[in-house]
């Protein structure tokens, strides 16, 4: 076994770095040197493994030995054991459900029940080495597209795959690409939306940090398909590591001829630039993001207006897709539309990535086929609710989404079924709450967020969300009045109908769904001055 190419992977996602994985890497390097193991074992920094809660994570390949919660004091033992082909028992992952120690990656339920397309390279390759990405099949899709496919064929393939925009709205990606391609004008743009502003979601960050070249490759292919020469990656400035790794990836891709003039000897030229978003939730809205790139306040543009695909950045046709949408593209090209469309449900193809957090045993980043039930996600992958507590609700879609009650656990998770239940996919946040969470307080929390983030342009959103927040604040302080529930519902429906952009239209969702599914909790606060979960001080 010792003769095989062995590698120690040290997770360098933001979560693990906060657990001092940089120090662990340095110590492993020193120990390896000291024990003369440099030729036998390779050390590698990787992006996020997704299981952030168990971090810092160290994995030994090819066996897939998975060490969790590694500390700087453990490095000597890890190296000594690795050199002798042994395993450090005490660092193995401890399954909270079966109470057993699990040796390898593939056997941990958190991983084995997932299906990873978008996250396939996260945690496996060094995001700062283009050779690693190329070694994992990277840029082969780009080469195929440039040598063997016309833009029309690329668009047809994306359309046929059924890929829907993974930023939240789920608009069919192929149709958007086609609209951009058909839009007249020689100057066009591709923009990647990495402005993940939803509190409680971090999947876009993990993809940008863990597999930046996949995002680049998807964008370059998109540029070729729609006929754009320039692209922008719009990333939150609060994600400094993502910015750094994307910049490194852009520089490397340019040096290797995947970006710039006459890519891979073809007639196609494409440039990419990073733009750091300065922090505004509303910039997730396409027209607001475009305003921001142009140097304005991030204000959404009122209707009627042309679609961004016809008149976007500097009024030129602009293709705007989410990080995960672009990261899916190379796989669709490589394996074909049918392969991709073989996953998921009738109307929602492929996979969805969720940030599974809150009161669940295994927190982290997960990827499952569209249509997987909430029950499977929470109980099989997430390991259930810790401390023997009862699940109360699942919040999906962040501040634009809603809360679904425990009775809806068999709901298949995809764009359409979530929307029908009053919630939404959003950017993929999934927060599990147990009996200790007060649903009125949670609704108040989300409204506090949206009313702060309202851009202030239209009255229903600016004043409406503020009024809803004030009513919720009163209820949680024991000053609720009879009729408040009806008033909240009426206000919420009005705001959803009359707001200018998606932020306002979806802002009432957390309140409307908690009223729909947990009305009795509101009633207890108002009529009995009692918080059933014991959260609100009244």
């Amino acid at each position, binding site marked *: 076994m010792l003769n095989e190419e062995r590698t120690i992977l040290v997770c360098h996602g*933001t*979560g693990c*770095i*906060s*657990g001092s994985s940089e120090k662990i890497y340095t110590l492993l390097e020193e120990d390896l040197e000291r024990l003369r193991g440099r030729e036998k074992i390779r050390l590698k920094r990787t992006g996020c493994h997704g*299981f*952030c*809660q168990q*971090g810092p994570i160290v994995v030994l390949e090819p066996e897939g030995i998975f060490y969790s919660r590694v500390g700087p004091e453990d490095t000597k033992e890890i190296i000594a054991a690795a050199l002798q082909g042994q395993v450090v028992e005490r660092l193995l992952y401890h399954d909270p459900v079966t109470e057993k120690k699990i040796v390898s990656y593939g056997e941990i339920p958190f991983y084995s029940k997932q299906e990873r397309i978008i996250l396939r390279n996260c945690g496996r390759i060094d995001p700062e080495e283009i050779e690693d990405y190329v070694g994992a099949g990277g840029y082969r899709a780009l080469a195929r597209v440039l040598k063997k496919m016309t833009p029309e064929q690329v668009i047809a393939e994306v359309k046929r795959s059924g890929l829907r925009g993974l930023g939240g709205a789920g608009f069919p990606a192929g149709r958007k690409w086609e609209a951009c391609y058909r839009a007249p004008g020689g100057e066009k743009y591709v923009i990647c939306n990495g402005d*993940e*502003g*939803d*509190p*409680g*979601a*971090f999947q876009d*960050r993990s993809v940008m940090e863990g597999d930046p070249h996949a995002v680049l490759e998807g964008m370059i292919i998109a540029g070729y398909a729609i006929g754009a020469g320039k692209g922008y990656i719009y990333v939150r*400035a*609060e*994600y*400094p590591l993502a910015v750094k790794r994307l910049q490194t990836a852009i520089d490397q891709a340019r040096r290797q001829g995947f970006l710039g003039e006459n890519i891979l000897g073809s007639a196609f030229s494409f440039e990419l630039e990073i*733009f*750091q978003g*300065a*922090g*505004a*939730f509303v910039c997730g809205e396409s027209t607001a993001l475009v305003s*921001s*790139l*142009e*140097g*304005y*306040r*991030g204000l959404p543009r009122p209707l009627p207006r042309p679609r961004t695909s016809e008149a976007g950045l500097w009024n030129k046709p602009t293709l705007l897709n989410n990080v995960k949408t672009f990261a899916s593209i190379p796989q669709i090209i490589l394996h074909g539309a049918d392969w991709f469309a073989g996953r998921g449900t009738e109307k929602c193809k492929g996979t969805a990535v969720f*940030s599974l*957090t*809150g*009161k669940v045993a295994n*927190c*982290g*980043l997960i990827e499952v086929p569209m249509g997987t039930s909430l029950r499977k996600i929470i109980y099989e992958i997430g390991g259930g609710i810790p401390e023997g507590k009862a699940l109360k609700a699942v*919040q999906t879609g*962040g501040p634009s989404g809603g809360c679904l009650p425990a009775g809806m656990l068999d709901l298949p998770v995809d764009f359409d079924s979530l929307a029908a239940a009053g919630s939404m996919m959003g950017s993929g*946040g999934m*927060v599990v*709450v147990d009996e200790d*969470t007060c649903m009125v307080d*949670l609704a108040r*929390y*989300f409204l506090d*967020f949206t009313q702060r*983030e309202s*851009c202030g342009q239209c009255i229903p959103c600016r004043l409406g969300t503020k009024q809803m927040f004030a009513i919720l604040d009163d209820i949680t302080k024991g000053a609720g009045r009879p009729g408040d529930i009806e008033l909240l519902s009426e206000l919420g429906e009005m705001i959803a109908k009359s707001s200018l952009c998606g932020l306002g239209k979806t802002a009432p969702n957390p309140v409307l769904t908690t009223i729909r599914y947990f009305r009795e909790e509101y009633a207890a606060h108002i009529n009995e001055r009692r918080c059933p979960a014991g959260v609100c001080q009244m």
Partner: protein
Amino acid sequence: MDEELAFVRDILPYYEQSRKAVIPILQEVQSGLGYLPERALGEIARYLRIPASHVYSVASFYAQFRLQPLGRKRIAVCRGTACHVRGAPGILKAIEEATGLKEGETSPDLEYTLETVACIGCCALAPCVRVNKDVFGEMTREKAKDLVAEVGEEDRDVE
């Protein structure tokens, strides 16, 4: 103040004289000076040949920008959803008590700033607190108090 202005004048020539440069310029000025002094906004407006009111409108719109100086130690409590349901409000309260500051305040000696952020993106380690660039996960009220004490003894560089 003049040093601040000199800093702004030094970096401006590296940018295109176009409105789209306004956010990147503001970001570099803030990263160099820690905040955006009023005179810097005027200087940027002159360079870009756009009204100062426009530069101000952008600087006041985005959460990243600060018009007042920040403390050397910036403590940011994450108020993301995962952090909220795992007790972020209690963490904020504990840090408010330990520092004597309210959310959004900076101590008069410019030693500390206490702020909240929408989400750091370390949700699996909730609740989280960030001090300057370092993230601390799985906080409790006790750990938060210890962290403030620890931070008080260290000399961290401002970003």
